[in-house]
């Protein structure tokens, strides 16, 4: 105790104490987090989660997908689609589908994180399928290579999603949406589940490591400052031509009119 009181007023005492406090909180949080994740895995908790999911499903999804997710005329069976598909569809707001339009659109999610997890657990319990990605699997910030990701994107995704990832039109009013601003987890899940018109990119076609590279490239393109000035929506020559006619030629003609009006 003498030791503590002796250094109590040392000028490093404050910062050190702060550091220790932060470390303690951080550690505690991680441990608690891990503990809660573990908790999901205990079988009784898992059973409640599935039960909860079944209940939400009966209320929100069964009208289209059938009471036991076996599918109905208007919506496909969900048996075997896996947790990843449910997480992607529900967390990006696509499901529950609002109207039976060409394509389920991204919108504000209807269910919160726990409810989504419950739904995913329920659908996953029906038959095995691709699981949701965990945070360890999603280590795109640590591994992966941006340049390789760009090359993979141009090879596998750009024909639908555009070279700059801005999205593109498919036939009959369907479209591939922009991939900018999509959460890394959902990019990954889109690749492993292939929503709607999008193909599934199995780990044999694009390895998990390569998937992380793609995410890395998308995130890089998203955060890249607009080099060379305003990006004009990054849709290429169409907006450029529009600007050349309006701002460029428009301004010049305006000046020409001004130059040739006689001073009155």
């Amino acid at each position: 105790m003498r030791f503590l009181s002796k250094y109590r007023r040392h000028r490093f005492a404050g910062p050190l104490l702060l550091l220790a406090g932060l470390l303690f909180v951080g550690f505690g949080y991680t441990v608690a987090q891990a503990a809660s994740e573990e908790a999901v895995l205990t079988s009784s908790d898992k059973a409640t989660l599935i039960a909860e999911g079944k209940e939400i499903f009966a209320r929100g999804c069964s009208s289209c997908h059938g009471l036991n997710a076996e599918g109905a005329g208007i919506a496909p069976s969900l048996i075997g689609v896996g947790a990843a598909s449910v997480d992607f569809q529900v967390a990006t707001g696509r499901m529950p589908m609002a109207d039976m339009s060409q394509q389920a659109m991204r919108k504000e999610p209807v269910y919160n994180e726990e409810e989504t997890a419950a739904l995913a657990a329920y659908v996953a319990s029906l038959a095995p399928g691709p699981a949701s990605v965990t945070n360890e699997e999603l280590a795109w910030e640590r591994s992966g290579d941006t340049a390789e990701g760009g090359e993979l994107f141009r090879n596998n995704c750009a024909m639908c999603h555009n070279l700059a990832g801005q999205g593109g039109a498919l036939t009959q009013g369907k479209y591939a949406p922009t991939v900018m601003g999509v959460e890394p987890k959902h990019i990954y899940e889109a690749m492993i589940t292939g929503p709607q018109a999008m193909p599934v990119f199995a780990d044999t076609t694009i390895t998990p490591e390569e998937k992380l590279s793609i995410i890395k490239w998308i995130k890089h393109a998203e955060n890249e400052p607009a080099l060379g000035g305003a990006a004009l929506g990054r849709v290429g020559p169409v907006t450029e031509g529009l600007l050349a006619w309006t701002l460029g030629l428009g301004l010049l003609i305006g000046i020409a009119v001004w130059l040739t009006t006689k001073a009155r």
Partner: protein
Amino acid sequence: MSARERVAGNVANYVDERTGSAKWLKKTLTKVFPDHWSFMLGEIVLYSFIILLLSGTFLTFWFDPSMREVEYEGSYEPLSGLKMSAAYASTLHISFDVRGGLLMRQIHHWAALIFMAAMVAHLMRVFFTGAFRKPREFNWIIGVGLLTLGIVEGFLGYSLPDDLLSGTGIRIAEAIIQAIPVVGSYLAYFVFGGAFPGEMFIQRIYTVHILLIPGIFLALITAHLMLVWYQKHTQYPGPGRTEKNVVGYPLMPVYMAKAGGFFFIVFGVTAFLGAVASINPIWIYGPYTPGQIGAGSQPDWYMGWLDGLVRMAPPLETHAFGYTISWNILVPGLIIPGIIFTGMALYPFIESWMTGDKREHHLLDRPRNAPNRTALGAMSITFMLVTLINGGNDLLATHFDLSINQIMWFSRIGVFVLPPLAFVITKRICLSLQRADRELVLHGRETGRLVMLPHGEFIEVHEALSPERAYTLTQHEQPAAIAPVVEDENGVRNPKGAKAKLQARLSRAHSEQIAKPTAKDMLEIENHH
């Protein structure tokens, strides 16, 4: 006389005695140019061309026109280590590692877009005012040549960086070349120096882009401007302006000062765009590889109409004598553009045949006073707009929540229906405007001031037009239609009967006008009051 003036005088004298330049200069410097904003469109084209030459020269210092494969080691990290052509790598180098390089690239590309846009605007001015009529038909044809060259030059320049976006365009160009019956595939093989994409293409189009076409440009622009010079510029009608004179400012000092200043304004606007707005960010598109393709790939706007035509063509092929004829590429890619450009080049002669007018014209038409021509112009513009819209169909689909198939059908039908509709509507508008002019001349301007007369009647006060304005509104001629000569006076059928009939019909369409007020009308009105 100060010493300095004496020296200057001596130098001038020395030069004049040896070249006889004083007389030439005097004639030149006092040459008169009319003043109107629409006459400056040609200048915008000229100045953008100069900007293109200057900025393009800068780019040649670093651009490497080679398809040799290199590994990128420059400072743009998301592409580092990738295999690409030296052309693409050197464009990245200009963009990121040469001081002012990106700015120059952007100025060059913006100048190209403005060059083409101003050229089209200039063409429309010349067309709608009838400035192409005798004796300026040759200058019109030179103009059509310049426009065609501009499209080709722009397309080649756009392809030089060898990025994935422009590579998609070259692929389409190759398909168009291949669609030429019989010789197509040999021609494509010849152009690319082997199977697509080959190893020669960038090198070849580089020579054409920086040497051949600019050389032809310089020659044609010189001829174009010399013709403007010798034929003198046209002018808008007005008091004191006749077919025999030119009213305006002398070249020196007024016109030169204005023109010189205007050059810097054009440069300023282009540089401003280059500094604030990104254009053709090739680093996002990635290097060209034959197997890759991007959704929503578009060419620059002046090629967009062609792309739109190709996109709307229904798939149609015939197989004959072991050859495949791809009508779906041949018709929109070669035949229709061929018809459009030939028709455009011949239009001055076509119009003079239709109207039977073989006289010289130095006074311009107000577009409303040539309803048929104006309507034809509106029709052509509408056609171009529909095809241009279809060229951007995928972007319209995603950005306005439309279906690509809907847009496709809209343009397939619209390309036939909308241009004639534009013709009819424009002609009606022109005739209404003529009617409004007639009212204005006869009854003056409505002042909106109401006056009550002593016996209680209300009248609106009309203000008579100034004589100058009335003259401007009535100076044009309204030629009558040609009567068809079916039989000559001996009752012999005209051997050119059908042709004469057609000419008479077209001439009738051309001479459809609202009769302008005559002196007699004016007198009647006067007596009435």
